[in-house]
């Protein structure tokens, strides 16, 4: 008989007007890997944040190893052996790995540097982890940071591990390594909860699955006994074909040609190293790569926001490198970059839709006065065309839901009839319905002859949607491939630096 590690009963949590969790039930056994599955926004992270003491439920009960608990802070949760590995790492950049592990911990009697190092090494070896204790966090790779987070919770005696979307930032190889570690822990009797929206991973690693949808728990199933289509139906609420259509494009000539582009980042290090590629009109070119491989600098260089150390960018024959951003916008090159906090870079959260439309339009108005009229029209048009859910165009954008915010952003760029559309992480944090609407929009643009540069995190989406995929690693192009001809693992290798063995014909020479 398996022992129950965690039991969450009838949990409800509301934020303002949003019911994040409603009457949710969850049971996790020791020695199992339990997947918490659901779309973006389904309430998975919120639920686990209550287990880790960051939030407090409005109502409901939580039992840890049979005892009722009422966490008011992370400290209490940690003391009971719960270790949470957040999606966004909670590490202090300028401290070393060792210092991060020791945060918040009282000094144990007789502890000094040497036996501390040994203690941590023993812990790491037991689970197959390895880490340089004296390395500063800001010098670490994403995989190393995740390893540090895991060691940190293990050092605090965690027997229950919660991992929140751990694979979102990992390469396929790193994902395999993580799963190995998780199975190792399972064998040592830990209870593991993995929060994810990736079905293939759920099928591969979990023992049981609990599905959340719109804040409610829908069902709990045994992985071996369930099929992907029924999981999708539970997640989304109806039968959905999760295939993304790759529509045929009009196959126009080259729109944007990047030639030997070299860009330095803010700290003077090489962000883009001699990049060359061509974007054709009427195609979707995907850009894959682990975080901070140069994606942001690529977008910013093309949009004229940062200078390049070397190279040229040709748009319809003219070199646009060095032009100021306003001119580039006028030429018809539009860029929308969705950062992790969504509102940081394309929209002003406290302003309404009209004023956010004004953002890209006002420079075309003559004179010193601001005319809002045409922008109000445009706002209404965009809201209607894209079916944006908002009380009116005068609502502050930050009050809209994630999907609608991104629709406003994309809608604004599309409405200007661009010739080149650069979109970075457009479906970040969106649920299935909203994501598909975005893919539809991008396909429409492609068919209208626009050259689309799509920077994304999800390899599956990139491979399904894009005509070609360019892989960036440490600022270099490690491959430009036809997604129908390569496997995900091969792209994964390119993401970590190995160039593809079989070369695709270089498009530049056409």
């Amino acid at each position, binding site marked *: 008989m398996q022992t129950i590690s965690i039991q969450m009963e009838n949990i409800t949590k509301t934020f303002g007007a949003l019911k994040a969790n409603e009457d949710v039930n969850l049971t996790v056994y020791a020695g199992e890997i339990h997947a918490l599955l659901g779309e973006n926004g389904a309430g998975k992270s919120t639920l686990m944040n209550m287990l880790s003491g960051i939030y407090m439920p409005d109502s409901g009960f939580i039992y840890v190893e049979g005892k009722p608990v009422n966490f008011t802070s992370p*400290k209490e949760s940690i003391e009971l052996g719960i270790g949470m590995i957040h999606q966004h790492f*909670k590490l202090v950049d300028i*401290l070393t790995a060792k210092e991060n592990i020791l*945060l918040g911990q009282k000094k144990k009697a007789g502890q000094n540097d040497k036996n501390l190092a040994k203690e941590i090494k023993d812990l790491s070896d037991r689970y197959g982890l390895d880490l340089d204790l004296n390395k500063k966090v800001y010098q670490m790779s994403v995989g190393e940071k995740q390893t540090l987070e895991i060691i940190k919770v293990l050092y605090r005696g965690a027997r229950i591990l919660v991992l929140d979307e751990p694979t979102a930032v990992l390469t396929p190889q790193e994902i395999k390594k993580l799963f190995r570690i998780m199975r190792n822990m399972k064998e040592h009797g830990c209870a593991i909860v993995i929060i994810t929206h990736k079905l293939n991973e759920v099928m591969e690693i979990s023992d049981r699955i609990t599905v959340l949808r719109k804040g409610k728990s829908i069902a709990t199933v045994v992985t071996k006994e369930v099929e992907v289509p029924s999981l999708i139906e539970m997640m989304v609420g109806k039968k959905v074909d999760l295939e993304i259509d790759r529509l045929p494009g009009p196959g126009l000539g080259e729109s944007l040609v990047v030639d030997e582009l070299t860009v330095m980042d803010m700290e003077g290090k090489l962000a883009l190293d001699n990049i060359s590629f061509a974007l054709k009109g009427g195609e979707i070119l995907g850009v894959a790569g682990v975080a901070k491989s140069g994606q942001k600098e690529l977008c910013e260089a093309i949009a004229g926001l940062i200078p390049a150390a070397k190279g040229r960018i040709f748009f319809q024959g003219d070199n646009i490198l060095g032009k100021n951003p306003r001119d580039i916008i006028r030429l018809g090159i539009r860029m929308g970059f969705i950062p992790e906090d969504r509102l940081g870079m394309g929209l002003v959260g406290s302003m309404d839709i009209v004023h956010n439309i004004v953002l890209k339009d006002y420079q075309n108005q003559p004179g010193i006065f601001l005319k809002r009229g045409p922008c109000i029209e445009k706002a209404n048009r965009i809201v209607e065309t894209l079916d944006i859910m908002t009380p009116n165009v005068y609502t502050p954008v930050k009050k809209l839901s994630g999907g609608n915010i991104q629709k406003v952003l994309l809608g604004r760029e599309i409405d200007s009839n661009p010739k080149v559309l650069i979109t970075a992480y457009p479906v970040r944090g969106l649920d299935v319905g909203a994501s598909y609407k975005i893919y539809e929009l991008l396909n429409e643009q492609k068919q209208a002859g626009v050259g689309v540069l799509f920077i994304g995190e999800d390899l599956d989406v990139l491979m399904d949607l894009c005509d070609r995929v360019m892989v960036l690693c440490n600022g270099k192009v490690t491959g430009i491939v036809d997604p129908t001809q390569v496997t995900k693992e091969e792209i994964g290798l390119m993401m970590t630096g190995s160039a593809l063995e079989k070369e695709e014909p270089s498009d530049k020479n056409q």
Partner: protein
Amino acid sequence: MESFLVAVVVASMPLLFATLGELLSEKAGNLNLGVEGMMLMGAVIGFRVGLATNSPILAVLAALLAGAFGAAMFAFLTVSLRANQVVTGLTLTIFGSGFAGLVGRDVVGVPLSLQLRNSFDAIPIPLLSKIPVIGKPLFDQDILVYFGFACVILILLYFKKTRIGLNTRAVGENAAAADASGINVNLYKYLNITAGGALCGLGGAYMTLVTIPVWQQDVVAGRGWIAVALVIFASWRPVKAWLGALLFGALSILGYRLQAMGISLSQYLVDMIPYIATILVVIVSTYKNRKEDLPPADLSNPYFREER
């Protein structure tokens, strides 16, 4: 030269206490622009208690408490009520100045008793005070100077060697990470801000108990603001803060020295020097590249766990 150095150390004390105090607050992530106000509150309360009780201990304690009280108000508003740190700090300065003016209204120009003043006479440390050039400035000073030196060392050890210091640094760099590690972010902020405020209060009191020592409305004259700049100059490190305080202490008495040396420059133009120097410090400080010299990453960001 030696007497000049002695005067430099004395002149640097208010700046040292205030800078160390603000450093504590900022390391924990809170930018408290109310330093001038806290110094004034400490100055006036320390003075009045000294005047009334003739006890140096009570006067110093009162100054510490006054500064701490001002800082506690700031902490409550910015940590618990999440008010804008810049505006709240400025308000503290305005409040502190008004408060000090009111409290000090009937003791302007009144001198402290000789007995109290003597408690702050220089106490030479045997042997060390005989070292040429630096002996007197460093080892033949009043008790509060020695306390100031001790504070530099204690704060250095606090951040480098203690767990609590490490936790404080985490709170200032990444409050969310500190919270997730089980650290009580609010408690740490309150404690560091309040302790910092106490030191600022002491800095102000040093002027009214030792340096001048009378009460007048503009006794602090902008030192609180110079202290805020010095924290940046010091890259949030206690030893560099001490050096900065010495430098600016020197600049503030440069005018008298120049006059004594026969160089005549209008007093007012010379008075400008510390402020111009502060501007230069602020300009140069923007050229920091090393990550370790940057301000605490979460400085002036409020932290609230239930954020969605």
